[in-house]
């Protein structure tokens, strides 16, 4: 289900880093030896043999991250991102695996299109990449895709991300058929008759600035509908990029009632509120929109207690000229792969809102569990998928430094604390600063 270009496993010893793997229960200063890409020993004073030695003193070594929600824009908009550039950006962000959304041009709705991507990934992907396929043909919300064949061709899950499945009847059929494919549905929940042409959250900021508002209830009524259908059909589902407190309430209720519902949240929804859009920076325009302080607090609380199991960037590259327009004319979406860890560390871990262990768990074991992927871990015998983190490094986000082909980051010019020093993905060094 995951694809990466062929590379030999490397021999590396990381000396004296603080090793943190919350799921394995490791939280100590240790050496980690990697033999031919596989973790061979974890302990104190390990032999280095002929291995490359990396001094990890002062750094934290964790499992590398998984981003379950990325737009690689391939096929169709290779000017904005390619599998090569997107996976290089992910490696720089500490990721060992990412999942790409199918809302490309053409949409990934056939085994042939998916097969072409799998083939490119096998040649170009710097880290592992998996592909979601569309729920409906052309994401038009009319006919189901051939999900069983797409699953056989390598689809990790199914999503019409970018647009909701408008018809409740069709959503029910998709849930029924997902049991055959054995893959989850990942849902973009938006009731379009409520969100309409909403640009930002419907609240006091939108009222003051004159923006058409996309109310929280426009998300949560669709969350409630899909959870009700999932409960009725007894099928699991995953809720993409939750933004509203009402959605979190619905999620909690469904999980308590036994629905196998999971959810993700983005760094920007965890860190920002709609107050930020007063700057009218088009790089703060995304769907779903930034919401109120209460919504943000509810998302943080849900991430903390595990109701929301993973952090996803919703990395959405856009060409420079498409965002260099008035806010209302700009497309939705912001990049995030190269800044996710640093922004979470700066604005949530350092102020004491979330522990580092929680953030790491939600960026590693969480998404692996949700999508049935191998969990990156610090354990003997595991393929080396590791992130070496410098929690103290201060840096300014600079458009020139991105490995992504796009620069539509909401963090341009911001100072962040914490950086990825090295990423080992699939047994080989994929990034070092």
């Amino acid at each position: 289900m995951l694809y990466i270009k062929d590379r030999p496993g490397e021999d590396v010893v990381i000396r004296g880093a603080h090793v943190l793997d919350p799921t394995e229960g490791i939280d100590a200063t240790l050496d980690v030896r990697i033999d031919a890409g596989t973790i061979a020993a974890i302990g104190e004073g390990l032999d280095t043999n002929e291995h490359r030695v990396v001094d990890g003193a002062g750094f934290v070594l964790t499992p590398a991250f998984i981003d379950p929600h990325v737009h690689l824009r391939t096929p169709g908009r290779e000017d904005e991102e390619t599998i090569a550039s997107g996976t290089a950006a992910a490696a720089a962000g500490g990721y060992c695996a990412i999942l790409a959304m199918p809302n490309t041009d053409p949409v990934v709705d056939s085994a042939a299109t998916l097969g072409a991507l799998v083939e490119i990934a096998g040649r170009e992907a710097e880290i592992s990449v998996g592909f979601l396929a569309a729920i409906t043909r052309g994401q038009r919300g009319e006919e189901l895709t051939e999900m069983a064949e797409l699953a056989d061709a390598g689809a990790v899950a199914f999503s019409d991300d970018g647009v909701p499945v408008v018809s409740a009847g069709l959503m029910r059929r998709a849930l029924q058929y997902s049991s055959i494919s054995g893959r989850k549905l990942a849902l973009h929940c938006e009731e379009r008759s409520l969100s309409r042409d909403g640009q930002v959250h419907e609240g006091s900021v939108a009222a003051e600035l004159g923006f058409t508002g996309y109310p929280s209830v426009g998300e949560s009524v669709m969350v409630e509908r899909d959870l009700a259908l999932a409960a009725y059909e007894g099928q699991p589902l995953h809720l993409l990029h939750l933004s509203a407190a009402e959605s979190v309430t619905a999620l909690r209720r469904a999980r308590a009632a036994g629905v196998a519902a999971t959810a993700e949240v983005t760094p920007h929804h965890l860190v920002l509120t709609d107050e930020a859009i007063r700057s009218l920076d088009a790089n703060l325009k995304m769907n779903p929109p930034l919401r109120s302080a209460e919504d943000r607090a509810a998302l943080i609380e849900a991430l903390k207690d595990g109701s929301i199991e993973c952090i996803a960037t919703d990395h959405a590259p856009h060409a420079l000229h498409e965002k260099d327009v008035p806010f209302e004319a700009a497309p939705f979406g912001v990049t995030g792969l190269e800044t996710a860890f640093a922004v979470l560390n700066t604005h949530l871990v350092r102020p004491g809102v979330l522990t580092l262990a929680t953030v790491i768990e939600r960026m590693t074991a969480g998404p692996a569990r949700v999508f049935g992927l191998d969990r990156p871990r610090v354990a003997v015998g595991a393929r080396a998928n590791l992130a070496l983190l410098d929690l103290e490094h201060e840096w300014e986000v600079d458009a020139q430094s991105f490995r992504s082909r796009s620069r539509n980051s909401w963090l341009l010019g911001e100072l962040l604390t914490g950086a990825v020093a090295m990423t080992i993905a699939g047994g080989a060094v994929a990034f070092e600063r």
Partner: protein
Amino acid sequence: MNTIRLVHDDLRPPGPAPRRHLISIADLTRDDVQRLLGTARTFESALDREVKKLPTLKGRLVVNLFYESSTRTSSSFELAAKRLSADTLTLKAAGSSVDKGESLKDTALTLGAYDPDVIVIRHPQIGAPQLVARVTEAHIVNAGDGKNQHPTQALLDVYTIQQQLGRLEGLHVAIVGDVLHSRVARSLLQAFALVGVHCKLVGPPALLPRGMNAEMTTDIGAIRDADVVYVLRMQQERMQAGANYVPSLREYAARWGITPERLRPGQKVMHPGPMNRGVEIDPRVADSVDALVERQVRSGLVVRMAVLYDVLTGGPVGVRALAAAEVA
């Protein structure tokens, strides 16, 4: 990288003072508003002379860039610039490169190449004036951006009220109608707050923006205690078919239309124009002596003269402008 930046910053000569724009009332202080109103009064007195043209902005170039149709705003900006002896260049979206798909940024860059002193821009999208300010060296005056702001309209309305009622502080104004789609209402709310005018919003539930920090009611009876009833236009071009903000214009007129029966004697009525007679305003009200609509248009000219003068000279109208007026 940080180090390089710091050195670079330290060695850079001090830049010019930030350019003055008028993009949002939210950027102004009470003093700014009072200064602009004072400047407008000065210009109004100058307009009583036989020769109305002042040499104040001679040699300056004012570009009017209009992406939305407009009669009174574009004509009053053009006349304001001409009364101050500035050169003017007016561009409307129809018939320009905009028709050929040129982006706002490229149009602004093209105009910027003529070194205009002021660009007056009206655009259907929020944030357009900020973009033009970012890519050109001109002073930007916002003549309306989407549903966000229309600062010169708010200033001319405040000016009109002050001239007609003799004061501002403590007055009550009711803004009635389609507040949701109204940039005029948003600018007015902020301007009224600055000058101490109490304001309430009256209209159908779906046309009162949720979360607006203002007193809001659907009861048209609430206009009774207002000194001024400010009537907003029902913006039919922004009401998509089937949006159902109100069931019909007929029902709107019956419930919220401003009729003589709903007004107290002597209550002043304002409207930013263009009016839909028989919808939001009864023709008898529109033509009554208490309607200040033409006063508003007249105020628009002197207030826009004051705004152009203010962004370019950066100060109160003082000795210099008066001296210039004497020369004329």
